[in-house]
């Protein structure tokens, strides 16, 4: 019994990271209709960058992560302006192929800059709490808290600010938003920088929690999309619920079945959801 709770706690921390990834994907998809597959690679880039800031310059983990998020936001601006904007009016499939090309490029750039070694970001948060016989690592609690804070910030940004209002307007009806004087290009840039910054934070947390290595990014992007499919497309609560379900089911699978097949099981969950509820758990029919 304790084992189940133990795995659930472990799964929640990973699930929080998946939620962050999915949140970045869901804002880009829901608002601009782009399946930004390179998101996972951007996240890995952020993880490596955080590692570099933390190790080379000796910055504390969260400061390093914050700096990396700023760089990530700039990378997001560049990606939108240089790669996605030229195909804005082309069929959606073109944007997706651009995303695949970007994935290869960013993976390649990661390899060139940071090398092919597996990297773990060292943090000072090594404590373990003991609650009713369940061991809870301090780092995992911090990861969950960080994710909560970031999600809250994004939710407030979208629901309370003027920029958030124009973002929602574009998501609802692009043409009408243009007619009302919303600067769609600006919204697009803002959305990409927010999304990339979120991705970077997820990469940094993954780096502290597990490890970052070449090729992890693609897996993360697929997990992110799996979360979207689970939770419902373009829905922020869906991303949260989907992320936690995926993380916990993965941890359970790793703990009780086989860790080698945990990814397979995560995808099976996704396929079952597709079969019975193609619009996602919290999606609109």
């Amino acid at each position, binding site marked *: 019994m304790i084992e189940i709770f133990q795995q659930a706690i472990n799964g929640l921390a990973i699930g929080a990271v998946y939620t962050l990834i999915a949140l970045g994907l869901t804002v880009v*998809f829901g608002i601009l209709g782009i*399946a930004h*597959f390179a998101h996972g690679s951007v996240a890995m880039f952020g993880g490596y960058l955080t590692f570099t800031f933390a190790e080379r310059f000796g910055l504390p983990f969260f400061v390093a992560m914050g700096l990396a998020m700023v760089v990530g936001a700039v990378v997001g601006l560049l990606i939108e302006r240089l*790669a996605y904007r*030229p*195909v804005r009016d*082309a069929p*959606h*499939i*073109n944007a*997706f*192929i*651009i995303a*695949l*090309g*970007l*994935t*290869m*490029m*960013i*993976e*390649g*750039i990661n*390899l*060139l800059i940071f090398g092919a070694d597996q990297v773990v970001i060292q943090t000072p948060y090594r404590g373990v709490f003991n609650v009713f016989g369940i061991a809870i690592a301090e780092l995992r609690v911090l990861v969950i808290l960080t994710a909560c804070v970031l999600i809250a910030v994004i939710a407030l940004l979208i629901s309370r600010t003027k920029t958030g209002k124009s973002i929602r307007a574009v998501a609802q009806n692009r043409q009408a938003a243009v007619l009302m004087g919303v600067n769609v290009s600006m919204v697009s840039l803002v959305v990409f920088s927010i999304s990339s910054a979120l991705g970077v934070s997820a990469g940094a947390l993954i780096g502290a929690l597990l490890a970052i290595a070449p090729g992890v990014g*693609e*897996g993360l992007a*697929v997990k992110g*999309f*799996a979360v979207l*499919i689970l939770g419902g*497309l373009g829905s922020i609560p869906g991303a949260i619920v989907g992320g936690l379900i995926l993380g916990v089911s993965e941890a359970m699978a790793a703990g009780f079945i086989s860790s*080698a*097949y945990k*990814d*397979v099981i995560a*995808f099976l969950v*996704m*396929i079952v959801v*597709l*079969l019975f509820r*193609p619009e996602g758990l919290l999606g609109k029919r």
Partner: protein
Amino acid sequence: MNPKIVRMTWIAALLVGALALPSVVKVPYFMHLIILALVWVILAQGQNLIQGFVGYVSIAQAGFMGIGAYFSTLLTVKLGWSVWMTLCLSPLFTALVSVLVGYPSLRVKGHYFAIVTLAYNMVIFTILLTFSSLTGGEAGISNVPRPAEFSVFGWLFNFEGRSNAPYYWLVLLSAFFATGLCASILHSRVGRVLVAIRQNEVLADAVGVSTWRYKLFAFVVSAGLAGLAGSLYAHYIGFLNPEPFGVDQSLNAILAVILGGSGTLTGPVVGAFAVTFLPEYLRIADSYRLVTYGFILVVATIFLPRGLVPVAQSLFLRVKSMIAGKK
């Protein structure tokens, strides 16, 4: 003259010329690359069927190739079946698997279909890598046999000899078969429905076409061709491990289709040769290979969204009309 006869003559001449290639190309390395490129033609034709005709990007092509390759290899190595038999069976087996996985994934559209197929590719890759009691895991399976020799009219076709020519002919004929199959699908009623789905799926649905059947058909044929390519690849290389069947290779198949010209019949052929030969010439920049590849893909999609073949075609027509105009 009847244009159909002209076209048939051209195709026959092309086939004869291609069959005679081994007596012209004497460098074994080039022969090797050409054989690989032809395997890629089969793979790319399959990819084009679902991506170019139907407009659904599937990212599972390399995974299906892996299923075909391992199916064929395991039957010949572990059970001692004839390679000829497994070459015929592996596309069928791969097609069967693709029916099972295609049905749920075709319930979603567009990007989400792509992501789901990508997940399949990752599942297939993980299984090939971790189920090592059967697949040999990362170390792989060596000594995959070549097809048995046979003789027709006193001509001996020995596939295990020093010359790769007989195997080249086998792969060439398979590539012709794949292209011919796609051509006959495209020109049939089914092909027109597939293109209609690409152009407007809602409309196709509304006029009473049960689109999911056609989509599933295209997906299954596409996977079957990938299975054939995998089987041909495994028995040619003689060594099999999961590495060539990862997501990267599926992306490569997409690149081949985009670069050549998606939705055309010659596009995948040009694209397949491009993705086989380009890396060989980009070898100097091996560490920059991924970046270069991605860059080509992005730039090609922005500036050349229709691919090389349609652009070359329209250039050719323009030059032709210019010459005609001068006369």
